[in-house]
């Protein structure tokens, strides 16, 4: 960016600050200002033209410093562009591209891209075909996702949404994909914790974190998801699969509401401006599965929305649900019961995930869902206090075992082949009459063995080649106890 006088001489237009209202500044003059154009102040700050009126121009400012009335402003004839490149990996940056907090300086990438580009047209799109592994048993088996899917993570506050996302990021980066994490208006401490978690697990060099704190100016917070999407698009154009996490869009909506109300827009439902849908929709449409010069690449977008008191019918939540290809509902009641992750599989939806799965996984999926709904129905029988017959007792026991199976520890990530085999072993009653602690430890050992022992991994991978659930169960009758024995010999007791 050149300085103020240079732009003044080039464009020959000047404006004077008339009124300052927190994030919006009213400026007189600047006759040829266009919406979304960048303007620069005499004092060096810059802002974006929010709207043009006959007598003044509304400018959204990107700095927290106070601007005095009468300050001169000039146009730059450019839109907002941010630097994008591989140098950003492993860094925490603010939405304008400046590095945050790190000691070593960031080598500014050479390529600059505008923040607000139109979404790719239909020629560049491809259907979602690759399965997306989150590493979390419940999601991958019951509510599967695909690469290029936009999925909404919705739930009450403090239900484990962010920890689910960090585990997914961990799994994806371990498989070599790039992750972009946008922290919109979050506390600096939370961002720091996330960064340290990634660094501790050795995956920080595949992640870009774009963070804006609640202490930053509202205009900058508003830009955060657009910056994150632009950076993801850069990596997508280079042929890489990107995971984009937007945490969270409901507070982004609140900040945009603040800006609009200051800009005297007419308040709509819940005082949100009437273009709140467009604000989010044009962002979500830029994610998906595309064909690029380097082959097929995708941007998978996981957006977070906080539903007040679990109310899925709120304005922003329903908006986002209509823009995304499904949602994962984090239930407060399940969280208090101790289930982690607290995802309610009956209220969660995935619209394009199931088409990416193999026949075997679809079978497993069907079994799980039908069994879970049966188990739910049985739960209500217990409350009646009636005498339970043998069948019901057996179902309840199996149901409990499966629910415990789905409870996963904080940083435990399970590969997909192992998920199917472990579940099938559970289903085939390999651990009948054993209590949950024993089953837990054995599953843990199998996970360890899978990660470290090639032979056991090969055996388990071979089992996946069966093409139906029933045939897998048949093979497991023999293989299962052998695997358990082999694992416990190596790692047990």
């Amino acid at each position, binding site marked *: 960016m050149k300085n103020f006088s240079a732009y*003044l*001489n080039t464009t*020959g*237009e*000047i*404006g004077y600050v008339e009124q300052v209202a927190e994030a919006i500044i009213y400026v*007189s*003059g*600047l*006759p040829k200002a266009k919406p979304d154009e960048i303007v620069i102040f005499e004092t060096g700050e810059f802002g974006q033209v929010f709207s043009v009126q006959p007598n003044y121009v509304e400018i959204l400012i990107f700095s927290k410093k106070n601007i005095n009335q009468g300050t001169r402003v*000039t146009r730059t004839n450019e839109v907002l562009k941010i630097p994008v490149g591989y140098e950003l990996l492993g860094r925490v940056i603010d939405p304008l591209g400046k590095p945050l907090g790190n000691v070593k300086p960031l080598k500014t990438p050479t390529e600059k891209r505008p923040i607000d580009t139109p979404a790719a047209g239909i020629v560049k799109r491809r259907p979602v075909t690759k399965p997306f592994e989150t590493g979390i048993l419940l999601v991958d088996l019951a509510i599967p996702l695909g690469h290029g899917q936009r999925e909404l993570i919705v739930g009450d506050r403090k239900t484990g949404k962010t920890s689910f996302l960090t585990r997914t990021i961990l799994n994806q980066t371990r498989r070599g994909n790039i992750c972009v994490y946008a922290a919109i208006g979050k506390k600096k401490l939370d961002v720091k914790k996330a960064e340290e978690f990634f660094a501790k697990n050795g995956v920080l060099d595949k992640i870009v974190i774009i963070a804006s704190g609640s202490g930053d100016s509202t205009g900058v917070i508003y830009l955060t998801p657009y910056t994150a999407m632009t950076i993801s698009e850069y990596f997508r154009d280079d042929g890489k699969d990107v995971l984009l996490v937007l945490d969270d869009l409901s507070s982004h909506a609140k900040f945009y509401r603040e800006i609009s109300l200051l800009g005297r827009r007419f308040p709509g439902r819940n005082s949100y401006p009437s273009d709140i849908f467009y604000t989010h929709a044009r962002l979500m449409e830029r994610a998906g599965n595309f064909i690029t010069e380097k082959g097929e690449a995708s941007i998978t977008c996981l957006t977070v929305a906080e539903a007040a008191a679990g109310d899925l019918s709120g304005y922003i939540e329903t908006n986002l649900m209509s823009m995304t290809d499904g949602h994962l509902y984090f239930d407060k009641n399940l969280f208090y019961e101790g289930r982690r992750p607290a995802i309610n599989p009956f209220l969660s939806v995935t619209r394009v995930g199931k088409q990416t799965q193999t026949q075997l996984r679809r079978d497993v999926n069907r079994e799980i869902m039908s069994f879970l709904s049966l188990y739910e129905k049985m739960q209500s029988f217990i409350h009646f206090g009636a005498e339970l017959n043998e069948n019901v007792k057996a179902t309840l026991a199996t149901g409990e075992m499966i629910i415990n199976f789905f409870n996963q520890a904080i940083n435990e990530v399970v590969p997909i082949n192992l998920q199917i085999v472990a579940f099938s072993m559970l289903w085939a009653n390999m651990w009948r009459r054993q209590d949950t602690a024993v089953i837990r430890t054995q599953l843990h050992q199998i996970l360890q063995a899978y990660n470290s022992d090639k032979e056991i991994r090969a055996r388990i991978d071979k089992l996946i080649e069966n093409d139906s659930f029933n045939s897998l169960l048949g093979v497991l009758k023999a293989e299962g106890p052998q695997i358990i024995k082999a694992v416990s010999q190596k790692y047990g007791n």
Partner: protein
Amino acid sequence: MKNDSLIYSDILKSLKTVEETEEFSSKIDVLLNSLFKTQAKPLEELLKKLLDLKTSGIIKQAMSVKNINSSDHAAIETLLNDIKKEIQKLRVLKLYLAFDPTTEIIDNIFEWVLKNIGNGIILDIEKDESIIGGAIIVFEGRYKDLTIRKRFEELNLFSAKLMDNLK
């Protein structure tokens, strides 16, 4: 009311700069405030006491054109408010000059502006010695730097190269 605006423009022609306009505006406010005091004094006295000769001349002229009686205070109030509204509509041409202009020069500049750009424009003149000569002109959001300083910078008159060549 085309007639009216023409009348006002005649009156307002005497206001050439922003300072003059502000002074005039505040005097009209004073007059308005004292117009309806309980001890109603005749207009002549008020004009003589509160305003200077020039301003009272302007107001008297306006009154004569509109045929307003000096005791009709309500009509006078309307007249004064109308004048104030017209003043709001004036456009400001800001000039940064390198020197302190005399009243004659200001008049000349005003005449030029009236002839070449239009009426309803007042001047806002500021002194900035660093421009050496010429002026920076700001009008309706457009900014033109036509100073000698700028010419020097463009020609790089004092660059080392030139000096070396001169040597």
